[in-house]
């Protein structure tokens, strides 16, 4: 369980997050949605200790993320930010192998090699494992990062806009793979996501943010209502039932 307790963060004089309280339960996929500048990425960064909050505490499995040793936390929680432009030239396999660093500090054993192979297989990357990252397409590279995160084998997986730079086909397959990870491997996945329809179709819980505050939290059925979404995004949105799913229409 991730407990977000009264978190505030400000840059100079403007609040990016203001007294945020929320609880993300174990298991399933939680999507964080909201307009630009709502503080979604900031919140994700604070949960994953990439940023330090000005006030408040985040606890993951009762561990305060600000004070728990970073290497211990790395075995509970993993995070992938949206921009990943590396200047280093690593092969896919080498990158994924770093997912095992929290456990073996670089001295890989046979168990690690097995897990690396599994993670590569899970994201259909086995054939590319000896390619350098800069020789891959954007979609393949994004999958390699996710494979590394899975290889880190943590209970909690935090992803900041994992669909960025992916086309339709790859977006769908990415979400399916995350769904599979949640269902089969029992991961707790937390996403920041822009496309509310992906959030509606694939998540168990939606957390809606606006102006640095959590304004709604509930199941997709609770949140995917015209009045609620219009309140969040300040634009006319209709909800249609398509193939049994709530789909927002806002064009």
């Amino acid at each position: 369980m991730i407990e977000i307790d009264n978190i505030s963060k400000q840059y100079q004089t403007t609040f990016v997050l203001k007294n945020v309280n929320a609880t993300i339960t174990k298991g399933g996929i939680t999507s964080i949605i909201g307009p630009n500048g709502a503080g979604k990425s900031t919140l994700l960064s604070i949960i994953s200790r990439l940023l330090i909050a000005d006030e408040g505490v985040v606890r993951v499995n009762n561990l305060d993320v600000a004070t728990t040793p970073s290497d211990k936390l790395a075995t509970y929680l993993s995070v992938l930010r949206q921009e990943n432009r590396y200047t280093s030239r690593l092969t896919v396999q080498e990158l994924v192998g770093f997912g095992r660093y929290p456990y073996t500090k670089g001295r890989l054993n046979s168990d690690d090699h097995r897990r690396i192979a599994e993670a590569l297989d899970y994201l259909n990357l086995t054939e590319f494992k000896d390619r350098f990252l800069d020789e891959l397409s954007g979609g393949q590279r994004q999958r390699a990062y996710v494979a590394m995160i899975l290889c880190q084998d943590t209970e909690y997986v935090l992803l900041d806009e994992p669909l960025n730079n992916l086309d339709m086909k790859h977006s769908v397959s990415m979400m399916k793979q995350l769904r599979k990870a949640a269902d089969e491997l029992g991961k707790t996945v937390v996403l920041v996501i822009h496309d509310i329809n992906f959030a509606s179709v694939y998540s168990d819980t939606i957390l809606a943010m606006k102006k640095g505050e959590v304004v709604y939290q509930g199941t997709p059925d609770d949140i995917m209502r015209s009045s609620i979404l219009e309140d969040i995004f300040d634009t006319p949105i209709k909800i249609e039932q398509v193939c049994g799913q709530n789909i927002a229409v806002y064009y």
Partner: protein
Amino acid sequence: MKSLYFIAAILTVIGLAVISLFIGAGHITPADLYSNENIRDIFFASRVPRTVALLFAGSAMSVSGLIMQLLTQNRFVEPTLVGTTQSASLGLLVMMVFAPAASIMSKMVVASLFAMAGTLLFMLISRKIVLKSTLMVPLIGIMLGAVISAITTFFAMYFDLLQSLGGWESGDFSGILRGRYELLWLVGGLTLLACFCADQFTIAGLGRDFSINIGLNYRRVMLLGLTVIALIGGIVVVVVGVLPFLGLIVPNIVSLLFGDNIRKTMPWICLFGGGLVLLCDIIGRTIRYPFEIPVSVILGVVGAVLFLILLNRKRYAN
């Protein structure tokens, strides 16, 4: 296959080392070493130290260039290009002015401290840059280096020390003798230390967020890297002088060939760096025999050409 290449590379470097041992103003053959005690003495007092110094300085400067590239996540920086060695020279000048009689050890410490401060300054400025172009960072570094060396030159001129400072900086191995190069063993130790921390540097090279995610103490690695860069820069400037471009071209070439998993590529970088400096030194000693042309002059030409080729590659990559 790769290990075969590696053996070939080691043999090449050994070959270069042997050539370096047996060429020079005094004529020495392996047979003389057996028979003549005098020649043996000269051999171990000047030829061996020189060759060892070349290998150590070359590989250390390459490794410190690599570390700097990883810590700044920028492929086009290296200690002689961004103010590290220029700051070390400034430190050296300060010692020449205020404590001319100080031991070479204390000179080295002060030079390293200055190198550290200069590198830190560069890193702080480059942090401020919201990256629009990766070349921006090295460009600022180059100018920072120019400004620092303008300060150094100004005061060197004022204290009438320009000549002796030039002598220190010239990247010249001809003055390397037994008793004057032993500090370079320290550089060898630092290079080894860097090899042991290879994984940490690889991870740091992937950025702060990446490092924190897998539980690496990013600040500590940054500090460690900075210290290694500054110490290597300081010691090499004091003992040998400036070796331009080395830290830039060697890691880049190795990266193109073998990638950036530092643990695997570190031996390659040491070999390349040491071998290149050996080769340049051999050229410098033979091209205008019996006079010597300092390694830094040869490296300046070779390095600049290789750098331009790398830049050209980048142009087509964009």
